[in-house]
């Protein structure tokens, strides 16, 4: 797992994808930070962090599109799956590498907190809650992206499908309180799977165990699906 993590993490920065991800992410986020916090002299990071929810939809597929697709295409999966390691280690190594780059972006975002701290007083609990929420949400998106990448050997298809799925989730999220005519059970399902809903609860300071378990198990579920796909490929 360690070897794969190291290789994939480095590959993000030899192939430019890592720089593009960080560049796009930080550029857009800094625009929102400048507008929302500096121009408005606001010390709360909640606004800029909730924007990040939306930016993630565009940037995370950049991180995950290559994960397995590129290995299938270059046939390097033959090396990974004939090496004396278990397939789940391969999945975890790839997931963690993408997650680490994502976390790097969040570390860079600490600069905002620093700037706010110089000119005002950031709310420590609010910052911590937002960071926790973003890490959990990112984990879910990245695991979905890695899973989708294991379905194809074409990076572009992996990226576009990930956009599609992320947008679908986003739209379902918006639908949950859109129509009063909707049957109650659909609404409750939508509430249950609502990523933004659970994200907002955490950032509001209500760190409930069920939300954390939801995010962690959703991430685990898609990594498990990814593992199943690999096993099916082996038996195909």
């Amino acid at each position: 797992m360690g070897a794969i993590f190291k290789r994939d993490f480095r590959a993000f920065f030899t192939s430019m994808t890592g720089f593009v991800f960080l560049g796009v992410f930080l550029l857009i986020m800094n625009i929102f930070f400048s507008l929302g916090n500096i121009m408005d002299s606001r010390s709360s990071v909640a606004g800029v962090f909730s924007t990040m929810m939306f930016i993630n939809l565009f940037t995370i597929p950049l991180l995950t599109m290559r994960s397995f697709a590129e290995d299938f295409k270059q046939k390097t999966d033959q090396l990974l799956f004939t090496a004396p390691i278990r397939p789940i280690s391969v999945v975890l190594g790839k997931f963690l590498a993408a997650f680490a780059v994502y976390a790097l972006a969040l570390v860079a975002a600490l600069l905002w907190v620093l700037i706010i701290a110089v000119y005002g007083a950031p709310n420590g609990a609010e910052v911590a809650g937002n960071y926790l929420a973003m890490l959990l949400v990112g984990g879910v998106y990245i695991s979905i992206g890695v899973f989708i990448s294991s379905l194809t050997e074409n990076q572009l298809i992996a990226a576009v499908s990930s956009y599609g799925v992320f947008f679908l989730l986003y739209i379902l999220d918006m639908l949950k309180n859109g129509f009063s005519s909707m049957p109650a059970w659909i609404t409750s399902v939508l509430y249950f799977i609502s990523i933004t809903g659970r994200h907002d609860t955490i950032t509001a300071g209500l760190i409930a165990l069920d939300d954390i378990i939801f995010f962690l198990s959703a991430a685990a579920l898609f990594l498990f699906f990814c593992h199943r796909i690999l096993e099916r490929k082996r038996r195909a």
Partner: protein
Amino acid sequence: MIEVTELTKRYGKQRGVTDISFTVGEGEIVGFLGPNGAGKTTAMNVITGYLAPTSGSVYVAGVNMLENPVSAKRNIGYLPEQPPLYHDMKVAEYLDFVYDLKGVTELPRRRHIDDVCEMADIQDVRHRLLRNLSKGYRQRVGLAQALLGDPCVLILDEPTSGLDPKQIMDMRKVIKDLGQSHTVMLSTHILQEVSAVCERVLVISEGKIVADGSPADLAGSMAGERKLVVRVAGPRDNVLSLLKSRDGVKKAEPIGEVEERSCDFLVESLPNMDVRKPLFSALAAAGWPILMLRPETVSLEDVFISLTEKKEVQ
């Protein structure tokens, strides 16, 4: 070292390989020979644990690949048909990565990687990007990768495909050297390769093993008795009856006239008889000079074609 029992791998309804069984002993160099699409790669992918078989079992160095894949894989070095290289890495970085991936700890990193580079003869490209290497070097880096961790079994899928003649010679030499200390199984559709490198051949056709033996055995099994082509300057019928009257000659027949005032004969001798000297003396005594005498050998090509084409004839 490798024990394959009743192995079948189906893709959907298509069969990759059907019910193949064989064993490869320690230190053997075995060639897996077959036309393209015969199932060589499929069989190798199953043996190395990349694909799961539909049925049957694979043991490598006594370890069951299905039940205990991690330790079974530790004994195998695999060079797939397309070397599994990350093109964005340098050779040294790549080998470092594979060293970690295979979890080699018992061999000191620097020394072991140096050794492997020397065996595959890639010391002078270690700081180059894999993307920029020629096909020959990529193949050799792929081989170096397979050698990392010092596995006792090497599985090489078409190790010389796409190389130029000089590189092919080099690669064959490397494989022969490796065969001294490893069990090697290589696939190829090139017959000379088998005679040049392998001690034993498994011929595979349409997913089945159709022959198993040494290259010489296979050629011999077809040749049966020795045959000679003799060109004699002399009257055809008289020469023919003289040839037939010699001891050890089982059969003789005229096969045409190539040079003027001469005739070619195909002479079949009894097993373990060398009729060349008696033929020479008799023909010389009769005053009919031999213009040409050559053994009619059956090449591996003939064997191969007859083995792999049987199906179509039926």
